[in-house]
C-alpha cells in the first residue's frame, strides 16, 4: 500500500526553468493538497483540489499552477522558477471533510532554485 507518492524526491533548477511535481495517491481520496514548508515555518497551502477536474487557490498560490486530470494524480507546476521557491514541497490527500479524517502526506520533494 503505497499511500501518497511524490516524484521526484530531489531536484535542482536554475532560475527561469520550469518543472512539474507529481503526486499520486492510491487510497481513492477525493481531496488533494500541495504545501510548501520553509525553515521555521509550518506548512503553507499552495493549491488544493476537492475532486477530479477541480482546483482552488490556497494561502500562497502565486507562481504555481496545478492540475487534477485524474482522481489519483495532482500535479504542481512551476512555470518560471525563482529562488524564493526553494522549499520542501509536500503533497497530501484526504477522504474529505465529512469523513473527519486527517490528511495523509507524501515524503516530500526537496527543490532548490539556483
Amino acid at each position, binding site marked *: 500500500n503505497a499511500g501518497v507518492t511524490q516524484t521526484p524526491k530531489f531536484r535542482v533548477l536554475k532560475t527561469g526553468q520550469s518543472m512539474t511535481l507529481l503526486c499520486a495517491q492510491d487510497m481513492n481520496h477525493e*481531496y488533494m*493538497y500541495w*504545501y510548501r514548508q520553509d525553515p521555521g515555518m*509550518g*506548512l503553507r*497551502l499552495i493549491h488544493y483540489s476537492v475532486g477530479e477536474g477541480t482546483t*482552488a487557490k490556497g494561502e500562497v498560490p502565486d507562481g504555481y499552477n496545478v492540475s487534477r486530470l485524474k482522481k489519483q494524480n495532482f500535479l504542481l507546476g512551476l512555470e518560471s522558477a525563482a529562488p524564493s521557491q526553494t522549499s520542501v514541497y509536500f503533497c497530501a490527500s484526504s477522504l474529505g*471533510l465529512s469523513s*473527519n479524517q*486527517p490528511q495523509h502526506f507524501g515524503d516530500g520533494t526537496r527543490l532548490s532554485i539556483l
Partner: protein
Amino acid sequence: ELKVEQNPLFLSMQEGKNYTIYCNYSTTSDRLYWYRQDPGKSLESLFVLLSNGAVKQEGRLMASLDTKARLSTLHITAAVHDLSATYFCAVDIAPNNNDMRFGAGTRLTVKP
C-alpha cells in the same frame, strides 16, 4: 488575518517530565489537527479534534480542544526520547473548510 500560533516554538525536556504545547487560532474552525514530523520526514497524523471539549489520548500524548477560547493543547506525560520531533497543529478555516492553516511547529527535544 488568520493566525495559528504555537508556543513554545522550541522545547527541551528531561525524560520523565510533563509539559504542554499550546495552539491558539484566530478564526472559527470546525476541526483541529495535530501532526508529528521527524527530521527530514513526512508528517504523521496524531489527533483530529472535532468539537468543543474534545479530548483524545494516545500513549504519552493527550490533546484537547476549547473552541470558545480557540485553543488546543498537546500534553506530554513522562516524556521519553522517542517523542523528540516537531509537532504541528493545523486548523481548517470555516466556512471554506478545505483551506488549511498550520502553526509554525514546536520542536521538542527530550534529553535523557
